[in-house]
């Protein structure tokens, strides 16, 4: 009886830990599939040999174009290339109907954060992988994990629910920006990012 009684708090502790470490992350994030699959690897490197900036271009005025519009995809994909179901659907549902793909952007920042790509890419000479990881060599798009409370992508917080970074690109919160700026001895004012 004594042993059983002493197990009660241990069981409670274990339940709390299980709820916090296992149940909570599962409940917190909901996964949504991208509207259509996209193979970065087929376009870059040994695939079509394109660079990141061929599609995610920086304009002459330094403005980042973000995800390319459907007209840019249509330059090559006016007709399906290959016979995959994904390709057929992409061309028929989006390219031929001139309809933009409602991509779910893993790295989308809150509206109150202003991030100039041009300064980081051209001036600081940061590689795309520094913040976006190996996204450019992925063969498919993983499901978008959306935080049910904040509505943001899990990529903003990082893969570890505890907030422990495994890679430089794992997490895109303000703390991550600040720590990188501190490492490069480039402390900035609030107004630089919050316009």
């Amino acid at each position, binding site marked *: 009886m004594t042993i*059983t*009684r002493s197990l*009660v*708090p*241990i*069981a*409670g*502790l*274990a*339940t*709390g*830990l*299980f*709820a*916090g*470490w296992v149940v*909570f*992350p599962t409940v*917190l994030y909901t996964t949504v599939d991208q509207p259509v699959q996209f193979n970065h690897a087929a376009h870059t490197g040994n695939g079509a040999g394109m660079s990141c900036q061929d599609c995610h271009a920086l304009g002459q*005025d330094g*403005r980042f174009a973000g995800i390319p519009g459907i007209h840019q995809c249509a330059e090559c994909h006016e007709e399906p290339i290959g016979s995959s179901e994904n390709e057929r659907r992409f061309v028929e549902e989006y390219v031929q109907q001139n309809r933009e793909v409602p991509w779910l952007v893993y790295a989308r920042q*809150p*509206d*109150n954060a*202003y991030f100039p790509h041009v300064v980081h890419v051209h001036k600081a000479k940061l590689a795309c992988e520094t913040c976006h990881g190996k996204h450019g060599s992925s063969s498919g798009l993983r499901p978008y994990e959306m*935080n049910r*409370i*904040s*509505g*943001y992508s899990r990529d903003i*917080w990082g893969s570890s*629910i*505890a*907030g422990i970074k495994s890679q430089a690109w794992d997490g895109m919160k303000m703390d991550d920006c600040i720590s990188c700026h501190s490492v490069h001895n480039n402390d900035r*004012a*609030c*107004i630089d990012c*919050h*316009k």
Partner: protein
Amino acid sequence: MQVTRRGLLKFAGASAAGILFSPLPWKLLDDIAIWTQTGPWIPKVPRGPLTTAFSTCALCPGGCAVEARCAGGIPYAMRAAVRHTAGRGALCPVGMTGHHLAYHPLRLSGASVIRRTSDQVETDSLSTQEAFDRILGALNTRPLATGVAVIDQRPGRTLSGQFRAFLAQQSPGYYIVPDDDRLRMHEAFSNACGKDGLSLGFDIERTATLLTIGTPVFDGWTRPARTAALLDRRHDARNPLKLIHADPRRTRTSVLADQWLPIAPGSETALVLGLTNIVMRDHPSLAARYVADLHTSDRRGMLDVLSLFTPGIVAKRTGIPVDTLEKVGSALAHRKPSMVIAGGDAAGPIDRDTHQAVAALNILLGSYGTPGGLLHRDELPMPATKMAAISTIGDVPDGSISLLIIDGEEMTCSTCWESIESKLSPDGHLVVSTSPFLTQLSAHADIVLPSPAPYETAAEVVGDPTDTVVSLSISTPLLPRKQGSVEPIELLNHLSGESVAMQELLKQRIALVHARGRGMIAGYQDGSGHRLSEFASADEIWSAFIEGAVWTSPPLHETPAHSYTLLGHSPNIVDRWAARAEGEPNGNGADGQVILLPTASSDAASCGRISPLMTKIYQESEVRPTRAHLVLHPDTGRRCGVDDGDQAVVQTESGSRHVTIRFSASLMPGVAQLSIGPDPNVSGKKSEFAGSDVFRNTLSRSPMAGVTAIVRRA
């Protein structure tokens, strides 16, 4: 196994402890905190094409050119337009957040009646037509011998001309402008030169030695581009600037100047006259050139009074050593061009006698009318109509105003509510404000007719008043005008029974500029600008203005006067100057007594509301001292019985204020500094004005003279 209440409690407690050792509570807090930034009340940047628009910042008279980055046609970021001559790529932090003001929480959504309760300022809405009718009723039924007044915080605009034309038809009608240092400087030079209507600018770009008397040249006195250029010139090998700043207060300019003269409070006149004495003694050629032409009586009086300001006496009065005074006098005489600037601080104007002494020293130094000194500014053309005379609040008889319209929301010391209140008729009055925000002077009004927020309407910007170059530009609208806002011209139309559109009036003024054919028009693509003759019509200039161009006109080449009256025809000025040779000692902290000096920020923040983002930065960083902090030397503080961080009360003969003590060893003993002016931390609350009368009696004195105050622990 039996489930007991104790067992359940143990299980729940342990579960809670387990959760505490998991990321759940911390992640939950972090995610919920984001709701404060994503709530429905937070303005959202629309999704849409990214574009660039150009305009002019109208938050202060500086008129810096801005480049707005827009999403879906709505600006989300502001920065300086790099190649534009207006601003030359510089913009202050307040200007960078100017597009936030349309969403300011204290913005009024329509015509409002103001109610002042014990601790809040509240509003009742009424229709614009009802507000117009009440104001018209007050105009038509006002008691005999009482008049109508307009306080114009931004004189020189086309709208200012309309106000003056309207007031010229009233009997009496008072057109009131802030009683600032610029006005007093012009008075002093007009007195000395015998010329009326002078308009002078400071050619600081070419000055080699600059003595500033309390002028915050490095902190918002002029537009950011000029400030930055001035800061750079301190280290310029070819064209170096030596800035000597005299001020009993520790300000940013004191810190950044090449030399700070921490003069005793109220000793600025003695300093100027002492330096005049040194210049005349050591540089007889200067004295001969200018003094020989003086009227005999004037010359005798000047020399007599200067004999009272020997370096020894001035050193005793100001607390500045004799050899330092000699060196400053020598620098002014030798490192030419040199110039002396007095005042310009938002804490209040310097007294007229000091301005007269500064004008005399500038004339002796040859600074008046020469490059690197004070140059005559061109005048902005104004349509010729009968206009009310320009006056200051001090010119208006007490109890004589029954209808007061306050245009703009700035509350400088010279137009603070205490100075206005006594001018209102005790038999009934109506105060109308056109501020878009419920704050500062608008909180004292009876009715507020909110004008459009910055960038919601085409606002005229008449340029930096300290510059020798006169400019005119239009702050092009970047945002849709909010429903319920009222252009001040609409109110004037209703009162005068006319129907004129602001845009037509602006076009008329631009036509006058075009007809004169003087100056240049510079746009965003071509910073060098084009001559007016290159524009075939005024409509072409208007089109350029709408795209963000600015008209500039260089200083006039007027021949300086040959004869001066350094005493400025001012009755008894010799006696008043002589009295400045001896002064009151600083407070020594005994019995808690100190000399209390007001400080105020002179940048765009003092001209009105600032973005909540800037409020947060100010609060967290203490970049700007708030009204809640009393700064004093540690020794003075200990003698007053207070310590750093203590809550205290500062009491003057006119009021008291609760403050938090801040020690600063760089402040001179016996004085204390207290910030005045708008306090964003308490905006919209009646406490914004609590304790604002501690400086009421400084209005007739220089802010550098201060007032005697007692500091005690709360």
